[in-house]
């Protein structure tokens, strides 16, 4: 079956979208987080088909949870709990009922003004979760590690960056990598108490922000970062601190990246230029598994053109802010106040 794309207007600019995982079956419900509006919220949606056209599914809202400020990130702590960061500096833990998705989200914990400029508000720009530990970053340049079970701040790096931080990712339990507004990447060892990064390097020389960071699901030493310029950088942390590869990808900022949960050869990216692409990364991964287990460069620059890139839907005239994939279904949220559902993706 060919790809099937279908848009629904939702009267909110969507900044984050996440499938709610189901065991064994395809997800049918998802979260959205809105931004850039007078009132922003997190909504739970379900896909429903109406009587007339059975194969067309439309999202229908089930519940709404109003937040102050823009929703900047939604990540799962476990299958029923999410951590949400907002632009007023708060981080919240919310729980959705397993039995009745219509019942309102329950707030389990809230860190008010976790990021701040003293009395003034400051955006908590992103967060990342690894096994119940939540790393949060903000425009204040601080990094916080939160313990989701105990609801406490277990570690802080105050003044990790003199600039605002825009992306964060756990490399392992004891290490996070952050990216700032200028594309300055820093790796932090959470076991030490010195306010100095274990390593630092630049994403590119163009002073553009690192908008998102992701590590490879099966090869954690491989790190990808998306840039505000639209390019994609890949590092092999074992080799050196410079990007192995810098790909000129989208024509404007990369907004989100995700590897297909069941096929690590597939990467999805979305962009401010309204594009949503899937990348076939198979070629790249092969080159790492050299015959004598020698570490080889992850992706030789000259192979860039060999990579398979597909556009999942025609370019949109407004930014695509977020995407999420579950099995054969991809959803994305956009600045023209719509969500798009892409079905029949082969992985």
């Amino acid at each position: 079956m060919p790809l099937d794309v279908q848009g629904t207007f939702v009267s909110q600019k969507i900044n984050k979208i996440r499938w709610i995982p189901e065991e064994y079956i395809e997800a049918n419900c998802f979260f959205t987080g809105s931004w850039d509006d007078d009132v922003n919220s997190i909504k739970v949606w379900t896909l429903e088909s109406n009587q007339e056209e059975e194969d067309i599914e439309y999202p229908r809202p089930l519940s709404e949870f109003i937040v102050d400020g823009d929703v900047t990130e939604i990540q799962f702590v476990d299958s029923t709990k999410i951590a949400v960061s907002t632009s007023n500096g708060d981080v919240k833990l919310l729980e959705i009922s397993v039995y009745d998705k219509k019942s309102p989200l329950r707030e389990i914990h809230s860190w008010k003004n976790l990021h701040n400029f003293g009395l003034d508000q400051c955006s908590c720009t992103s967060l990342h979760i690894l096994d119940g530990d939540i790393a949060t970053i903000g425009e204040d340049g601080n990094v916080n590690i939160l313990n989701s079970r105990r609801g406490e701040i277990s570690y802080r790096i105050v003044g990790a960056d003199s600039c605002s931080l825009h992306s964060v990712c756990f490399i392992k339990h004891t290490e996070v990598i952050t990216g700032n507004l200028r594309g300055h990447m820093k790796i932090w060892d959470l076991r030490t108490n010195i306010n100095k990064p274990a390593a630092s390097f630049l994403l590119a020389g163009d002073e553009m922000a690192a908008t998102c960071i992701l590590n490879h699901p099966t090869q954690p030493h491989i790190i990808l970062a998306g840039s505000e310029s639209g390019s994609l950088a890949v590092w092999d942390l074992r080799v050196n601190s410079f990007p192995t590869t810098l790909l000129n990808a989208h024509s404007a900022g990369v907004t989100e990246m995700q590897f297909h949960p069941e096929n690590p050869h597939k990467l999805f990216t979305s962009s401010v230029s309204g594009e949503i692409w899937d990348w076939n990364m198979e070629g790249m991964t092969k080159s790492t598994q050299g015959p004598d287990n020698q570490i080889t460069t992850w992706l030789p620059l000259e192979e860039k053109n060999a990579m398979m890139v597909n556009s999942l839907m025609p370019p949109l005239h407004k930014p695509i802010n977020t995407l999420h994939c579950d099995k054969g279904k991809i959803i994305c949220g956009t600045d023209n106040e719509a969500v798009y559902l892409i079905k029949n993706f082969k992985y």
Partner: protein
Amino acid sequence: MNTSNQGSSFSRGNNTQADSNTKTFVLPDKCFEQRAACVFRSGNKFSIYPRSQTVSKAPVSIDNKILDVRQDILLFIPILRKLVNESNGTYISLQKAAEAAKTTDNQVEFLKLSRQYRSIIRVCIESLQESAAMEQDGVKKCNLLSYITIFYSVECIWHLCEILYIDNIPGDVVLPFLLEWVRFHFPCHEQTAAQMLEACERGSEDHPEYWDTVIGMIVQGRVDVARALMKLHSSVDSNEFKLVDNSLRSMPVYSVYGGISTGEFTISWKHWQAECRSKITSRVLTSQPKLELIMKLIIGDYAAFESIRGSYSSWFDLLGGWVMFTAPWTRRHELGAPAAACAGMATPTHAPRTHLDQMVRALLDGDLHQVIHEIQQISDNGWFATHLTDILFHCGKLKILDKHQNNVTARLRDSLILEYGCLLMEHKSLWSAGLSYLGSCPPEGLRRAELALERMPIETEAKAMRVIAEAKKYGLNGVVRTVCACASSRLLRAGRIGGALTWGTRGKHGAACGRAAHAALRQYAARGELPAQDALLTATPAMLPHHPLLLAVKYSDFHRLYKSREFKKAGKLLVSLITSKLAPDYFWETLLLDTLPLLESDELIFSSEDTIEIMLCLELKSSNLSAEKADLLRLAAVRNLARASLADEDNSNSE
């Protein structure tokens, strides 16, 4: 089409008194009884306050209130935001199609987009209906119902416009399209007919709406359905029924592709009507008045049409039938006369003419100028007028002249788009859509976009980045600079020097960079702790448009070298900083005192030339240091000079 504009009919209130469009609102507070003043805030928001021009004689206790006023924008309710966003996509496609149409004929594409607009309106009406049905609150429900009325009119007019100006009609013979329009917008008879036909009961005339439905089907041109309904009448086998059925069956139908000329068709059609007329005059139908009425209708009898006018809410319900039975070959731009005939039919209730009536009439008269004027009165905040005018303009179907016979069509289209774009720019979220309207209307649209974008409140860097990305798309570099400078200023106030530097650099804003660099240097001079080292150390050469920044970057590099104990290099850099005389007055003390540990280190750092340079600057800038510190430095410098001279001598001796 060519409409000349008598005077300025768009602003009926050139002389503003007695302008029917001026509404008066009540100020809700007594404090405005004596004095009132106003100030604009942003967009459509402004304030009224009890401003005094003079001082009160004695301080009085005054009830001072400020009234924030804003226009209530219908399009900003969630359901209609879907319409706004979806139609924005179609609008953008239309602009692309119009661009392509400059080289090739693109009418098919325009028709497709017109239909797309109509389907958006349909979806909007349906979701309004859905939520009206669920709404419990009386006032809200009432509002929703009036929105439905609005968009229902919009849909109806758009469809007719599409038929008359956008659709490709073979031979311009409009009848089939006109009938389709009537059926689509007035479907009630068709629904009843369908129910009756489904039930298929002999003796359906007992149904209270039986005859209304049959006649309704006749005037909507559904002769086959009317005949099928008549077969359900218990006296279907009577002669009268057979006679009428025969007349209906034998009615000639005109088709451009029918292979006969208009002339030939006219002859056979007139012949058929004459036959029908003779049947009426033969008075065979007097016992069946309804059948007689049908016969009179199909020969286009004005009195017959007028007699059923009362059963229809508006005259244009009858328009399709009237054209069908009086002049089925009518071309699409010849509908003025039939419209006048139908509109002139007396109604038993003397119901007032509605706005929709006026619009349909103007449209059928081919007076697009008046049509646009009328649709501007619809309270959809200009959505319809903007999009319809735009598509008609691109189809080349609009020509509007001012009183001097100048073509002002483009100006009219632009002014509508600019206004609609600015309206959306006022909304916290819909600005992105608004910008694409303004961007499609240069040069004024871009200038307006610039004014609106720089004033967009920016609370987060994410928003700033998005605004900048959009501004760059339209080449609005002034906006980029302003947004960056303001972000830089905001961060500086929050004590975030690194961030302030970064934003200054992004905007290539020398003054902002300078401010941030000064702040960094001042902070170091005051606290002895250099802020934003990570930013300064990784600064790229592109980041050096301004002297204070250059100094800050170099100075932080000096710290790095010093800390890594590369004293020679550090010393060289420091001397170059001193001799370049880039430093502002407040920083000289810091810079000069930094030489002290290097002058006094065990290893010789400064050459004699360097030392002399330092001493020279020390004397030049001694006013920036306390006498005590200056003396300390002089002493150290002299001692170092002695060491350096000796070393120089050793060097020259050893050569």
